[in-house]
């Protein structure tokens, strides 16, 4: 799964990197299963995955293009890697015009549109919104910064802001359909700061650049540090809102056993994506936005919160439910992340041996 079907690499540095990644991933999974602490080890790998993605992606871009800038030539040739954040925006135009409003390639090259759509479909069926905590290569950045501070400086956030991702989703779906261009990518995506962005050749692009850099600093770095929550994921990301809808038909969920629950609301305070509130505690069900990260499960002093398989009795076999969930979830995370982790370790070894991360 790590090599993607091809044999072991012949280059010694790449082979070393792959072996190290393999040991790291399997070691983390072993600890996760043994310790019964899901979130602690998931988040460790998730953050490592996100950081390694940034290192590998940027290094590849610099190697191939010379910079992080994506040019009009790249777009016309379909050399723009397809990102899952575009998916909500392409649906209406694809349904009505049978075209994808993204300057990528349908089947060829890195992150082709077809392959990314298949990945997303598979993840949606298996994980639902668990995509956001087990597959998304951006979420780990938000998660990482949210774990830096020991205590939150901003504790109370008005509940109405938890609906903002859905509002943004509605607006970008409509505006993308109207303009036949992915408006979130052009105007709002903060992760362009760590992937690729357009060359500043007009005042519009300058404005867009200021916006996405500001959003990255605010939503991905500063606010997560101050609140100890995943602000970009929980209060802004329209893809997360879209993915929440898949929780409706996903077989896995997080439930609270009312008989064990002490109503301490610790789970509400720790949930990184605001997916638990007082009403959830009373009803025993997390909100539709639950990313199944397991943080509430790990933090509950009464072990009242657990992974649950829909349609099965509550409070029975919760450890089995946890294992049945974390196996496919971790497998997804491992396969998605292994390439990036291997790549980043390889770049680090390259830097150590040659003095440069770029070949």
């Amino acid at each position, binding site marked *: 799964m790590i090599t993607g079907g091809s044999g072991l690499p012949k280059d010694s540095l790449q082979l070393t990197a792959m072996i190290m990644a393999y040991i790291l991933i399997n070691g983390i999974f072993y600890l996760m299963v043994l310790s019964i602490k899901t979130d602690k080890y998931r988040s460790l790998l998730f953050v490592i995955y996100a950081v390694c993605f940034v290192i590998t992606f940027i290094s590849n871009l610099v190697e191939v293009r010379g910079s992080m800038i994506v*040019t*009009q030539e790249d*777009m016309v040739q379909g050399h723009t890697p397809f990102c899952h954040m575009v998916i909500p925006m392409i649906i209406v135009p694809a349904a009505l015009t049978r075209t994808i409003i993204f*300057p990528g390639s349908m089947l060829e090259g890195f992150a082709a549109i077809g392959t990314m759509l298949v990945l997303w479909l598979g993840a949606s069926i298996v994980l639902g919104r668990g995509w956001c905590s087990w597959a998304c290569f951006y979420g780990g950045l938000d998660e990482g910064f949210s774990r830096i501070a020991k205590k939150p400086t901003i504790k109370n956030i008005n509940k*109405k802001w938890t*609906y*903002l991702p*859905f*509002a*943004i989703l*509605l*607006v970008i779906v*409509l*505006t993308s*359909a*109207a*303009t*036949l*261009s992915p408006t979130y990518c052009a105007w709002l995506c903060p992760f362009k700061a760590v992937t690729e962005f*357009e*060359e500043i*050749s*007009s005042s*519009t*692009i300058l404005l867009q650049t200021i916006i996405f850099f500001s959003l990255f600093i605010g939503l991905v770095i500063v606010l997560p540090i101050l609140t100890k929550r995943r602000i970009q994921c929980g209060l802004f990301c329209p893809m997360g809102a879209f993915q929440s809808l898949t929780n409706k038909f996903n077989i896995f969920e997080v439930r609270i056993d009312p008989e064990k629950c002490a109503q301490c609301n610790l789970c509400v305070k720790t949930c990184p994506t605001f997916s638990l509130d007082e009403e959830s505690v009373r009803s025993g069900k997390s909100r539709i936005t639950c990313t199944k990260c397991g943080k509430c499960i790990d933090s509950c002093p009464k072990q009242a919160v657990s992974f649950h398989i829909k349609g099965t009795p509550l409070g029975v076999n919760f450890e089995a439910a946890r294992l049945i969930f974390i196996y496919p979830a971790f497998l997804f995370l491992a396969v998605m992340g292994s390439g990036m982790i291997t790549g980043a370790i390889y770049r680090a070894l390259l830097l150590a041996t040659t003095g440069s991360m770029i070949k």
Partner: protein
Amino acid sequence: MKYMKGFLLGLANGTFCLAYCAPILVPYLLSEAKDTKRNYIILSYFLSGRLLGYFAFAVLAWITNVTVIQNLANRTAILGVVYIALAILLMVYGFINKEQHCAAGLFGTLKNKMSDRYQALLPAALGLLTGLNLCPPFLLAFAAAAANDSLWNCILFFLAFFIGTSVYFTPLTAIGLFRRHDFLRPIGRLAVGALGVYYIYFGFVTIQRSIHSLWIPAETIRVQAEVRLKRLSLPCPCS
């Protein structure tokens, strides 16, 4: 394309209607419904009244175009300013304002004043009230429609707008789901606020275009262009 714009405007701003008007309308409509057939009759009366209100405003928009806008020296720039003003209002309603503002709030008074003979027309009267409501999204649609110089275009624009807003009402009132889905209200309000941000940019672009056309004659732009190699953003399909 302009009718599509009207439809998308209605689709986008219908969330405002959902947020502010539906909490009053839906319980009344549901309370009056006795069976499915009666449900649809009430709904069709309501939508007809609403459509009538929109057509009245379509005529008003055309009159505004003919009497006011056509005579303005720099109407494009003024429309841009109107867009920005309305966008700010949208943002206030979406992000700050907590109170409900919907003409449907008057329906209680209306119900008391209407005699029993005309009670059957109450849904239509309700629809007419919501159709004549001067809420920010509606004013935005009015501004967009008033840019049309033909009465027929104004009517069609508002028809498209009506269809866009009705998308939210028709299934919800028909199946009565709204009562159990209060989450749609905050989403609607925030979506309106987010749209306000979009319309601020749109307003500035409109003003910029009008200023650009003042300095450089259109003929020169269209007929000849000597361009050194430069890299611009891809042409926006919306321009």
